[in-house]
């Protein structure tokens, strides 16, 4: 067997072995290796010590009124109007981050789009203004031509 400390699987095999969750078929193989490998022996011994030390930390007892307090909060939630329940579900979802990511991205994309439109607004106005100015020019040309017509003396009657 290849030494787990030097291999890719080191973390998994040695941690599982110390936690007694390693597949039984691999235990014998690993124990055989540990007998001959000083580094693995030292690591396993140290890990077991840590494991035993962590066992000293026993959990606290749950308060006897835990359930009563929870059910009171649930009753408060159930009694709230539908729109309020909906608001709570939206703003306090069970696992919030992932659900909000696409919304934030979409919002950011919309904001960029709106900003882009605002920045380019003068350019959007230009063709309209150009059409208007072209209209004025045509009117002026027509007026000038009329004026010119007036200047031309009428042809003599034959």
């Amino acid at each position, binding site marked *: 067997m290849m030494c787990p400390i030097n291999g890719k699987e080191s973390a998994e095999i040695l941690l599982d072995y110390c936690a007694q969750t390693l597949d039984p078929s691999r235990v014998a193989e690993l124990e055989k290796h540990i007998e001959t490998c000083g580094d693995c022996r030292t690591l396993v011994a*140290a890990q077991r010590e840590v494991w035993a*030390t962590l066992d*000293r930390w026993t*959990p606290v007892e749950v308060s006897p009124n835990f*359930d009563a307090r929870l059910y009171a*909060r649930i009753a408060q939630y159930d009694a709230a109007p539908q729109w309020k329940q909906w608001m709570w579900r939206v703003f306090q*979802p069970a696992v919030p981050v992932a659900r909000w990511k696409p919304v934030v991205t979409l919002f950011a994309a919309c904001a960029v789009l709106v900003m882009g439109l605002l920045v380019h607004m003068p350019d959007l106005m230009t063709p309209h203004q150009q059409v208007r100015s072209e209209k004025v020019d045509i009117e002026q040309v027509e007026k000038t031509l009329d004026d010119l017509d007036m200047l031309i003396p009428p042809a003599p009657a034959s």
Partner: protein
Amino acid sequence: MEAVAALERDAELMLRVRAGDEISFGLLLEKHRGPVVHFLYRMVQNPAVSEELAQEVFLRVYKSRATYEPTAKFTTWLFRIATHLALNWIRDGRKEKGQESLSQEVLEGTERQVADRRQSVEQEMLYEVKLREVREAIARLPEKQRAAVIMHKYQDLGYAEIAGSLKCSESAVKSLLFRAYETLRARLAHMA
């Protein structure tokens, strides 16, 4: 096989909760109340806060019942909510605010545990010092390493479940655990 049965059982109960069965919610609460409170207690190291956060976990489970889909193991989902709330609480910096007032509570709890063991005063003091060192060693771990170690050591969760709770890959969890235990081996070596 047993794990698959447990998965089916919890998911089935949650689906019943979705259908409006309050008894099933009670059964889920009965089964997971202790593990969730203990996990949160070890994460935030504050009994009152851990209960408050555990209440929020179960309340969120209840609120989300209508949209629940058994896509992952129920415990993975439950511990993902718990981890999210614990990390938020730690990041919010509320830890410092509550630590002073509640450290007394922690000590009282410790004293009770010690007293129950009927040890001599000297042994009690030694036990208390060692316990505090264990707590501090875990508290000083980076957040994700801390969560991974607590779920691995105390909650008996597998790599896949821890990965699901922390929203990372299984290989990342193995790496987190190896580094965390490496740090703990160094910090707690003198207690051996």
